[in-house]
């Protein structure tokens, strides 16, 4: 949808009216007046989220050709296709803020855009597919269930659609892990090893700690975010620990203990240096992921050219006929 509003000035009266609407729990729609900063913060968050969905196809896509059965292959193809769909829902939501998708895609391909740090880790065994569905999609559900109540209407609606589909992602992943956890000693060792590798990066998916999250205050005030990074992370840990126990697996955290007083699972210190390294481009697979995106984009150029030429030919044929 084209954004037809002229460049807004952040007139204090308009800001006050906007904040009153937010406080009343109203949803903000594309053509509504919004502070420039709100528009920019949402563009940043939504485009990073869309990029994450697109790059998120790569780690698992790696295993499609080597899935051990037709059933697992079908699930994996469907899941990876969903991730492409999720990217498109959110790019479409971002466009309602007056940005071109083309511009956002170029930022990703040029290496100027951020995306979720988790996708810069390699998928070394097939059980990683299970652990990603279980933990990475599980973490995404915790995050996105809350984002479905975000103040920006198009983002909230995209999240509702995505959450429904993520449930399939998580279930197929958990089923795969449960299957391996009941399997041969080699299969048990394989899924445990995957869990060990993905546990800490999954906790990092919720972003920096509340004590070091510069954008959080403003985003919470505008109800873009409804819970802090640490609150969501704790919720994820509380949900996941019993699932790990149910499978007879362990988590690589000697400090993990249940706190009777709060009902929370307290966990050990997260390696924030690693997180910073990975989001600033120095993770194990950052280079590989972007190279794969660029290759896919360039290899698809003939398809775009053919579609454009075909449409032009049909348009001129119908003009001549008229």
């Amino acid at each position, binding site marked *: *949808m*084209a954004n037809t509003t002229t460049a807004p000035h952040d007139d204090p009266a308009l800001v006050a009216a906007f904040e009153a609407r937010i406080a009343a729990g109203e949803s903000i*729609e594309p*053509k*509504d*007046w919004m502070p420039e900063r709100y528009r920019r913060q949402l563009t940043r968050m939504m485009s990073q989220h869309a990029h994450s969905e697109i790059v998120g196809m790569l780690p698992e896509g790696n295993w499609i050709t080597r899935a051990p059965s037709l059933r697992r292959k079908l699930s994996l193809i469907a899941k990876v*296709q*969903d991730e492409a*769909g999720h990217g*498109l*829902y959110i790019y*479409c*939501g971002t*466009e309602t803020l007056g940005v*071109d*998708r*083309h511009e956002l*895609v170029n930022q990703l391909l040029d290496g100027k855009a951020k995306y979720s740090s988790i996708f810069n880790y390699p998928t070394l065994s097939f059980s990683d597919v299970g652990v990603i569905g279980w933990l990475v999609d599980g973490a995404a559900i915790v995050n996105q269930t809350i984002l479905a109540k975000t103040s920006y209407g198009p983002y909230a*609606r*995209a999240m509702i659609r995505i959450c429904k*589909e993520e449930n399939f992602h998580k279930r197929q992943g958990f089923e795969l892990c449960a299957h391996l956890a009941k399997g041969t000693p080699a299969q048990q060792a394989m899924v445990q090893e995957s869990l060990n590798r993905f546990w800490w990066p999954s906790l990092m998916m919720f972003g920096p700690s509340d004590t070091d999250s510069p954008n959080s205050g403003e985003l919470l005030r505008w109800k873009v975010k409804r819970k802090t990074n640490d609150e969501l992370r704790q919720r994820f840990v509380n949900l996941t620990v019993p699932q790990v126990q149910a499978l007879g697996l362990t988590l690589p955290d000697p400090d993990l203990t249940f706190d009777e007083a709060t009902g929370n699972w307290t966990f050990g210190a997260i390696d924030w240096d690693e997180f910073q390294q990975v989001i600033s481009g120095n993770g194990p697979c950052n280079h590989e992921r972007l190279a794969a995106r660029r290759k896919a984009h360039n290899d698809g*150029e003939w398809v*775009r*050219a053919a*579609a*454009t030429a*075909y*449409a*032009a030919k*049909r*348009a001129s044929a119908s003009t001549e006929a008229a």
Partner: protein
Amino acid sequence: MTADSQWPLWEVFTQGSKGLPFAHAGSVHAVDAENALLNARDVYARRGEAVNLWVVPSSAIVASAPSDAGPFFDPGNDKAYRHPQFYKVPRGVVVF
């Protein structure tokens, strides 16, 4: 239009099942109407979410302006006599 263009934008409307109204689902980029319909199916109806689809060029949508919502909808908002609650019914009588 270059090969690298993102193509025109289309708004997608889905009908969840026969008899229901069409509702806005989102948008897609496509080179023409036929492809817009195919893209809309792949993006918005992977799990039987629609039995019918409409795609409309985004540029063809005419929308009311949120800033004028008050005066624009006012003619319909000040006529209490259009609602059944405006009319009194003797106590104990069931009209419907």
